[in-house]
């Protein structure tokens, strides 16, 4: 009965013990020498020049989200574009296996997806996201 639960329990156990061990190990083993240099955020890098919790312009945020939108679009559209022409492993095979009603439905689906993205694009454009004011 525990056949399949056992790996999970082991996983949980290991996942719990590992960080504890990693925290405890150095504390026991490692030597501790506190100096001013050691207390710096980047011990061997550049000196920080200001607080990390610094405000930056919200327009970066909007641009980043817009970038993400098109990134995800690519993620969906790429396999679709590749699978279209491939008779042995693509859409045609799925149709043959009766997983999909027909090729048309896949095409319409992708077009609707693109259309929705287009609407989003128009929305962000009209809202002035691309104008750096």
């Amino acid at each position: 009965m525990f056949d399949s639960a056992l790996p999970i329990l082991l996983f949980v156990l290991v996942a719990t013990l590992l960080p504890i061990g990693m925290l405890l190990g150095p504390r026991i083993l490692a030597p501790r020498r506190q100096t001013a240099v050691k207390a710096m955020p980047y011990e061997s890098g550049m000196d920080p020049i200001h607080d990390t919790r610094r405000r930056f312009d919200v327009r970066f945020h909007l641009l980043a989200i817009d970038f993400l939108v098109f990134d995800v679009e690519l993620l969906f559209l790429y396999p679709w574009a590749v699978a279209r022409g491939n008779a042995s492993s693509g859409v045609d095979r799925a149709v043959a296996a009766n997983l999909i009603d027909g090729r048309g439905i896949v095409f319409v689906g992708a077009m609707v997806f693109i259309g929705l993205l287009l609407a989003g694009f128009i929305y962000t454009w009209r809202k002035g996201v691309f104008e750096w004011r």
Partner: protein
Amino acid sequence: MDPNAAYTSAAGVLQLIPEMIVVGGAVFVFVGGTFAKSKTAWSWVAAAGLAAAGLALWTQKVPGGFAGPIAVDALGYTLRWLVLLLGGVFVLALARPAAAGQAPEVTGSLLLAIAGGMIVSVSGELVLLFVALETISIPTYVLLYVGRKDSASQESAAKYFFLSILSSAVTLYGFCFLYGVTGSTHLAEIARVLQNTSVAAVADWGPLPDLALVLIFVGLAFKIAAAPFHFYAPDVYQGTTHENAMLLAVLPKVAGIAALIRVTTLAMPLAAGTGWRIALFLAVVTMTVGNMTALWQKNVRRLLAYSSIAHAGYLLIGLAAGFAATLGPQGSRPEEGLGASVFYLVVYAFSTAGAFAALAYLGSPERQVDTVAELAGLGRTRPVSAAALAVFMFSLAGVPPLAGFWGKLSLFLSALDVRSSPGLGASRQTWFIVLAVIGALNAAVAATYYLRVVATMYFLPPAKEPRAEGGGAVRTAGGLCLVAVLLIGLLLGPMLIQATQDAVQASAPVPPPKPAQQAQIDGAPPSIVR
């Protein structure tokens, strides 16, 4: 599901025409809003979109079973109508706040959330279900944030956002386990596989189906605000407007219960033993926590938040009874409890939406009603609004002959109808009797704070000049809810209970296997979609 039918079919896509109309309306509002300056037109557009969707839904056929990932059954049809009608109420209620601020964003997000609720109702497949749940959640974050600029509303939006994504993650984790066990994301297939109760298979799975059930249950328990996943609700309701609170109190609850019924009770018969224990436990804790804490509240939205938590507990009673009846003995009717939950959902939704609408109407855009004390003397100064609010309170308290009475009656009866199976689970019946008793005690306690609102309105001298500047739209919304509550209470109650139970019965993905089929299922390969 017919194994020969295509998984992604034109028939399934056509089933979603009402939802497509709503989403199309949302896109139109979003894009159109960047061109036209009008503030008031968008609510009309939304209303027109909902009306068109209703027309499309009216013409839909309900063949039963699945069309690809879409469940084209009576339960889905019923719930879609519920969400669509509630959507009408939301659009009316939010018309004024929308016109006061960023109208296209508010209206468009609202439409998307409504579409999400409708898709949840018909999802027969885990991925679609999850996407639909998120289609409710994400626009809701926007709605919570967009309306007001004060820190309280920002706090409430942030709280809801973080906890909501946590719950989504938990739900998704549960879906993963379910897929891992059954090898499919389709509910019909999952149900078929999980009906396989051969000793070897059960031993092979171990606790995994039950683990999946717990995770899914917990994730969705957040949506319906069941304890101990309810903590966000009071803070968020208090920090936002009456109109947003109405949306939050109703729509996720409908979606959560719909998803719970579809995934956990109907599709996971093997885990029903765990299911009824969890549902019963959560029901008791949720009812008690909600009602006891509500006794102390002075803020109306907070009061109604705890009230909505308590009602989540009542809703879980029907679910628990449904789980238990799945286990037998012969002749048990899972649809009795599940149907009672769905009916209670209808009752709760209209009563709560009505209460929030009445409160929204009684305030003004600048300053809304916050405390119970502000309602003092309303029976004299605003007799109609006070009477409507009193009806909603009585309905929530479950006073006959209003709608809430039928809801509670059917839930408690379904709990009392649970029978023990011989052998295993012999104490089940006792547990459910205890559950019904605790439920009844809770209902009695709950009457205290509902009646306190009524008493404040009728027995205390007027506090100050009532404003009642909420506008005609929200008044119409409240009026619609009032009609629904009275109609269900006085006329349609017993009939609707029967109808919802029939709908649930007609929507079980796989009928219980006959002994002859059992052996055949035992030997069958687990899945067709890998």
